C-alpha cells in the first residue's frame, strides 16, 4: 500500500532544479547550507522588461541522530522555522516563498536579501572606517523594532537576534531572518527553559537569562535589539564577553565573563533597579562582583556616532536591567528619538550615493549542482575582494570569533 502512495507522491513532486537555478553557495552552518538561486521563470515588470527573481534556498541536512545514523525526521529547529514562517507575514520579516522536499532534505526558499547588519557593520569598521550614517542607523533600528513588535504581538519570541540574523534588501528594507530558535510563548505547555537550556548568542543575551531565569519574556529580544543598536552606533559589540561552555553533564554554566562586560558599562545591578533580582537562580553568584556605577552615558557620548539625547534615552530604555521595566517594541517605535530629524524611512539607503558590497557567493560546492558556467565570479566580486563569506540567515559562527547559538535541544523527560 505504501508503495503505491509513495509513487503517487514522488511523481507529483516538484524538484528544486525544475524551478530554480543555483547560482552559488552563500554560507553553511550546523543546520545545513544556504544557496543563492534564480527562479527559472522570469516575470515581466510593468515596463515590459524581463525580471529575474532571486532567492536564498536554505537546505537542511537530514537530522541524524548521534552515531547511529538512522534518520529521525525533521529537526525541531526546521520544524519551528517552517511552521512560524508559514504563518507570519510582515514587511520586516523574511518571507518564505515555498518549501520543497527532495532527497530527504528540506529546502526552504526565502526571498533574497543582499545585505545584513553584520556585513554592513564590518564594511564600515574595516573599509569605510567611518560610522554608519545616522539616518541609516535610525531606519534600521525602527524597522527592526517594527518586525520585533509584529513578532511579539503574535506571541512569538525570536530568541536569536544578532546582527548576522538581521538582513537588509538592496532596497534598504530590514528583514528579520533565522526563526530557527523562535517559538510561540503564549501559555507554553512547559516552561520555556525546559525546552532549550540556552538561548540567544552570548553577546546579545539578556541579564535575566545570564542569571538563570526559568521564565523569560519578550524583553529578552529587546535587550538584544539594544545591543544591536549600540553595535550599529560604535561598530563594535557592546558586551563582548566569552562564553563559558557547558560541561559534559549539560549543566548550564554561570556566565561570569559576560556579566562582567555588562557591569563594566551599566554598573552592577542593585535591588532598587531590579527588585526581583534576588529571585534569580544565579543571584548568589553576584556577591563576587564589586559594585560599580553606570557609565552608559559616557559610553554613548564618547563612543557613539550619534549625539542625540533621545537616542541615549532609547538605548538605556532597551538596556534596562529589570525585564519588567525594559521598554517594549511597541513603545520603542513611538520613542521621541524617531520623531527627531533625521526621521527613519522604509528605505534605509535613501539618498545614499554608494552601494554596499554584494553578498559573497562561492561557486565551489559539492552538494547542490552549480552550473559549470559559474557566473559567480561576477556575482560575488565586491564581496569576495573584501574577503569572507558571511552567514546569510545567520550563524556565521566562524566569522572573526563571533559566537553563535546552536541549539542544544533537550528532550523533556516525561
Amino acid at each position, binding site marked *: 500500500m505504501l508503495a503505491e502512495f509513495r509513487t503517487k507522491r514522488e511523481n507529483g513532486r516538484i524538484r528544486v532544479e525544475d524551478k530554480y537555478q543555483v547560482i552559488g553557495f552563500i554560507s553553511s552552518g550546523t543546520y545545513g547550507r544556504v544557496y543563492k538561486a534564480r527562479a527559472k521563470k522570469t516575470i515581466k515588470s510593468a515596463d515590459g522588461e524581463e525580471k529575474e527573481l532571486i532567492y536564498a534556498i536554505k537546505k537542511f541536512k537530514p537530522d541524524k541522530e548521534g552515531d547511529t545514523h538512522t534518520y529521525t525526521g525533521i529537526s525541531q529547529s526546521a*520544524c519551528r522555522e*517552517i511552521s512560524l514562517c*508559514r*504563518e507570519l507575514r510582515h514587511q520586516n520579516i523574511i518571507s518564505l516563498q515555498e518549501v520543497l522536499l527532495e532527497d530527504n532534505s528540506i529546502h526552504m526558499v526565502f526571498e533574497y536579501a543582499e545585505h545584513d547588519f553584520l556585513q554592513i557593520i564590518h564594511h564600515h569598521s574595516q573599509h569605510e572606517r567611518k560610522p554608519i550614517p545616522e539616518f541609516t542607523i535610525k531606519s534600521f533600528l525602527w524597522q527592526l523594532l517594527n518586525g520585533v513588535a509584529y513578532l511579539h504581538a503574535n506571541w512569538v519570541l525570536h530568541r536569536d537576534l544578532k546582527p548576522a540574523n538581521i538582513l537588509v534588501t538592496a532596497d534598504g528594507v530590514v528583514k528579520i531572518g533565522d526563526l530557527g530558535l523562535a517559538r510561540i510563548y503564549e501559555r507554553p*505547555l512547559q516552561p520555556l527553559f525546559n525546552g532549550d537550556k540556552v538561548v540567544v548568542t552570548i553577546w546579545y543575551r539578556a541579564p535575566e537569562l545570564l542569571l538563570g531565569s526559568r521564565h523569560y519574556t519578550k524583553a529578552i529580544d529587546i535587550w538584544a535589539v539594544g545591543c544591536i543598536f549600540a553595535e550599529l552606533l560604535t561598530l563594535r559589540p557592546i558586551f563582548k564577553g566569552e562564553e563559558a561552555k557547558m560541561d559534559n553533564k549539560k549543566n548550564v554554566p554561570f556566565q561570569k565573563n559576560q556579566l562582567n562586560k555588562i557591569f563594566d558599562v551599566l554598573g552592577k545591578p542593585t535591588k532598587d533597579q531590579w527588585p526581583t533580582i534576588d529571585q534569580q537562580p544565579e543571584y548568589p553568584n553576584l556577591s563576587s562582583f564589586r559594585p560599580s556605577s553606570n557609565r552608559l552615558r559616557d559610553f554613548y557620548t564618547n563612543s557613539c556616532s550619534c549625539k542625540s539625547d533621545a537616542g541615549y534615552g532609547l538605548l538605556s530604555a532597551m538596556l534596562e536591567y529589570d525585564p519588567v521595566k525594559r521598554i517594549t517594541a511597541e513603545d520603542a517605535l513611538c520613542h521621541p528619538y524617531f520623531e527627531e530629524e533625521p526621521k527613519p524611512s522604509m528605505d534605509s539607503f535613501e539618498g545614499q550615493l554608494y552601494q554596499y558590497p554584494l553578498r559573497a557567493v562561492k561557486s565551489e560546492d559539492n552538494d547542490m549542482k552549480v552550473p559549470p558556467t559559474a557566473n559567480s565570479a561576477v556575482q560575488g566580486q565586491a564581496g569576495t575582494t573584501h574577503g569572507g563569506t558571511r552567514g546569510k540567515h545567520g550563524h556565521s559562527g566562524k566569522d572573526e570569533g563571533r559566537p553563535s547559538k546552536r541549539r542544544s535541544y533537550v528532550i523533556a523527560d516525561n
Partner: protein
Amino acid sequence: MAANFWTSTHGTNWLLSRQALADCRKIDRQYVTEQDLIKVNIWFAQIITDLGRNLQVRQVIIATAITYFKRFYTKNSFRNTEPNLVAATCMYLACKIEESPQHIKSIIGDMKSIMQERGEPFAYDNQKVAEMEFYLLEELDFNMIVYHPYRSLMTLAQDLGTKNEDVQWAWYVINDSYRTDMCLLYPPHVVAAAALYLQIALRGGAQYDGDYSLTSSSTANNGNAGVTTRKRGAAASNSNPNSSNNETPKVKDIRSWFAQLNVDLEQITDIVQEIISLYNLWGEEDKQNEKIREILTRLLK
C-alpha cells in the same frame, strides 16, 4: 497569526465546507457507508488519543495530532495509505510542533503496545515514520500551527462565570469533538461556545437567567442519555445534571449572552447535534470490535 485566527493558515486554508469534505471522501465512500466512515474516524481518533496518553502528552498535543490526521485524509483516501503509520507520524510531528518533542523510538514503542492491545502488529521502524513525516508535511502544505477550542473555552467560561467543574465538563466535550469532523468544519471558538452551550443545556442552566434553548430543546434531551450513560470519568459520571448550583448566584441571561458572542447560532446547533450523535454512536466501541475490523478490511482492502 498566533494572535489572529482569521489570518492564520488554519483560518484561511483549513476550514472546509461540508460539501468539500464529502468530495474529499468520495473514494472511501465507494467501499464503506457514511456511518462506517464515522466509526473509522472514531477508531483512529481513539488510537491517537491512547498513544498520547501512553506518552503522557498534554491534551492539546493529542488534538493537534488528530487534526493532522484528519487533514491528511482530506487529501488522501484511506485505501491507498497505512493509517496506523499516519497516526503515529501525526503524533510525532505534533509533539515537535507543540514544543514537547518525543523520541521517535518512544512513539514507535508505545504505538506497538497500543496496537497489540487491539490485536494488530505495528511493523514500522524509524525510517518509515521519518519518511511518512515528509509526506505528511507536504499534505499539510507545511501548515502546522493548529488552533484549538480550549483557550477560547477558558475565556468564554470566565466571561460567563462558569464554575470550574462545569468548565471541566465542557473541556471533555471538546476532547470528544475531535472524534468528529468539527475541527475541519468550524473555527475553534465556535466549537468552544457549542461545548459550553451543551454543558448548560444538559447539566442545568439553573445558575443562569433566561431560556437557554437556542432552538428546540429536543436535541438536548435526546443527548442527555447519551452523555450520562457513557463512562467518561469524573466529568459526566460524577455529576447529576441538576445538582450543581443552587448556591451559585444567577450569572447572566444566557440567551442574550450567546447572541452577543457574534457567532453563528446555527453553527452552534449544528455542532451540538453532531456531538450528540457521536455519543449515540460511540460507546459501544471495544478494542476488539469485530464490526470495525470488518469495515477496515473493506476500506483498506
